[in-house]
């Protein structure tokens, strides 16, 4: 008896757990906690999307005020073969925990991004997402490119603080039928009375069968006794009530349908599809780079790339930034870029470039060193444990007037243990 009880309690517990999981199951936001991007394979982060010029402004707003998330990205030409390509289906997304913000507008190269699209490898895109603050709090906002079959590719983030009260949030949508609606409460009264009506009808049906208690045990016994004749338990009044309910239910369904058509004579169907967006025009390639060898020295946490650079621009150029997996390694002899906040992934002195600037027309072999603890912190070192241990990064050259030339580099990375 005791074990029986235990078994019963056990299965009740399992059921309760299963139900609890159902209730909380649908929430799995990858951006809910800051830096979910760390969890992704290093090669995925390095070889999918190069994010640069990321800006989120302003960083402190009140409810109802707007925030622009802007920047540029370039899908890597070293896009991993084993995941679906961004050239098939992708969506310009935003990483925030739930609808703390509303996405009022999102554009890539000026094209509205309400639909999915595709992006081409090695091409540059410029995005601008306009958010409207809805719920107070402090949020780490990431631009995200969701790639069908590959998941979210998360860009760099900044913290935005929202003050005020969600109760003051105001938002409207103007329909093509000329109505201005408040999406926070739109049609809620219809939803409530329609559901309440059906609850009442459903409970009325049960009330008929349970109008005189007890029911369950006496009927169980009678069904057992009557056997094949048990159908006589359904009386003539039962039949009449069943017929009335059947007719009434059909009538209410039809009535509701015609009422809705009368109230909302103009409706459409859910919309889906794709939009096409042209990449930004490619500037002529002024700096050519060929990677000779890329090594990662594990003890020194130092990534070094030996490459042959040809300068076709009219002015001397120098390497100013090495951008890999959202981490910006800066040559501080050339650029003064500091982390704007604690979680801003800038290694302000992380890039060592020992060679002098490359003169116009010159071809030279140089070595750059990207050294920073961020390699470790952001688990990029795990690259050596991956099946396809190749790296990709965005290299930024600057001439003496500050003109920027970008070149994506990539190739095999060889670990060095000494």
């Amino acid at each position, binding site marked *: 008896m005791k074990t029986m009880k235990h078994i019963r309690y056990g299965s009740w517990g399992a059921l309760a757990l299963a139900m609890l999981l159902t209730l909380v199951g649908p929430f799995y*936001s990858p951006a809910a906690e800051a830096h979910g991007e760390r969890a992704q394979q290093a090669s995925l982060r390095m070889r999918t999307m190069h994010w640069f010029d990321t800006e989120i402004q302003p960083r402190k707003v009140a409810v109802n005020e707007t925030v622009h998330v802007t920047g540029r990205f370039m899908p890597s030409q070293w896009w991993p073969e084993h995941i679906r390509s961004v050239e098939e289906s992708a969506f310009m997304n935003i990483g925030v925990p739930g609808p703390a913000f509303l996405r009022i507008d999102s554009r890539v190269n000026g094209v509205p991004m309400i639909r999915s699209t595709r992006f081409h490898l090695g091409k540059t895109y410029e995005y601008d997402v306009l958010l409207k603050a809805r719920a107070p709090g402090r949020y780490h906002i990431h631009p995200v490119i969701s790639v069908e079959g590959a998941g979210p590719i998360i860009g760099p983030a900044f913290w935005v603080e929202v003050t005020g009260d969600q109760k003051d949030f105001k938002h409207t949508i103007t329909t093509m039928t000329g109505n201005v609606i408040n999406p926070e409460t739109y049609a809620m009264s219809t939803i409530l009375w*329609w559901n309440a009506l059906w609850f009442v009808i459903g409970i009325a049906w049960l009330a008929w069968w349970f109008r005189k208690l007890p029911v369950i045990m006496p009927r169980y016994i009678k069904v057992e006794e009557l056997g094949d004749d048990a159908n006589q338990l359904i009386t003539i009044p039962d039949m009449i009530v069943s017929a009335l309910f059947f007719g009434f239910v059909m009538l209410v369904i039809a009535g509701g349908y015609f009422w809705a058509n009368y109230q909302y004579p103009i409706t459409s169907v859910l919309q889906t599809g794709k939009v096409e967006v042209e990449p930004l025009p490619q500037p002529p390639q002024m700096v050519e780079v060929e990677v000779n060898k890329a090594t990662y020295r594990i003890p020194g946490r130092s990534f070094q790339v030996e490459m042959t650079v040809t300068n076709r621009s009219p002015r001397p150029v120098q390497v100013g930034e090495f951008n890999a997996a959202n981490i910006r390694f800066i040559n501080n002899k050339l650029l003064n870029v500091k982390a704007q906040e604690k979680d801003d992934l800038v290694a302000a002195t992380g890039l060592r470039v020992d060679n002098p600037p490359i003169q116009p027309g010159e071809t030279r072999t140089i070595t750059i060193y990207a050294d920073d603890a961020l390699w470790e912190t952001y688990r990029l070192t795990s690259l050596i444990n991956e099946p396809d241990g190749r790296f990709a990064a965005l290299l930024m050259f600057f001439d003496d007037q500050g003109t920027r030339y970008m070149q994506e580099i990539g190739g095999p990375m060889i670990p060095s243990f000494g």
Partner: protein
Amino acid sequence: MSTVSGAYGKGGTPDTTTRPTKSAVRNVQEQMAAWKNVDYTLIPIFSILIGGVTVFLIALTVGDWDYWADWRDRRWWPLVTPFSLIIPAAIFNYFFWKRFRLPIGATAMILGYMFGVWVSRYMNFHIFANFPMNFVSPSTFIGMGLLLDCTLALSRSFFLTGLVGAFLFAIVLYPLNWVTMAPFHVPVEYNGFLVTVADLMGYQYIRTAMPEYVRIIERSTLRTFGEAVTPLTAFFAGFVTLLNYYLWVWIGSILTQNRWLTRLI
């Protein structure tokens, strides 16, 4: 079990002479009171429990199609939903008829489900995840359960209940819910695109984990039917739901055999 059956004699009138001698129940009044307590406790517990299990089942099988206003398309939602919901409906429709001759199984189960799903949507999607309630309100299925139960009461036959009740169960889903769906299908012009209120809300209220392309909207190869999409889907859904009803009545008949019941009690 035998003592109880003896206490409620052949014609249904209580027989006081054969009442059990060593029992907490000492007379007919107490017997009736005890049985009333069975009703008071069993029906709510049954409805909540089975409703909860159905919330789980629907979450697993229908999932997003019923969570969001911008997922209820013409093609998949009206097919997947009744096909899935007919499973518990058939089992309990069968069970309550077979054991008690009560045509209430489907309605009681759906009432419990509706209660559970409203609590779930309100607590999790509205309070916790902060979506507007109108965007995440559940569809109603109570009318579908009633049609199934009423058909059983009128026909007293599982065959006819399948043919008429289960078929109706599926095809009324769309008209039954059109009252709460129509407002969300009103067209809006957004940046040169025609969208519906539901589409626009789905875009504006950010769901990071749900990029636009994951919505399974009208995906099908049978696009040649044009305007007839909704009735055609409904007819097809009615047919497969009918077959699924028969299947689960049969499975229900195995699951609810007396030996399981006696072992449990």
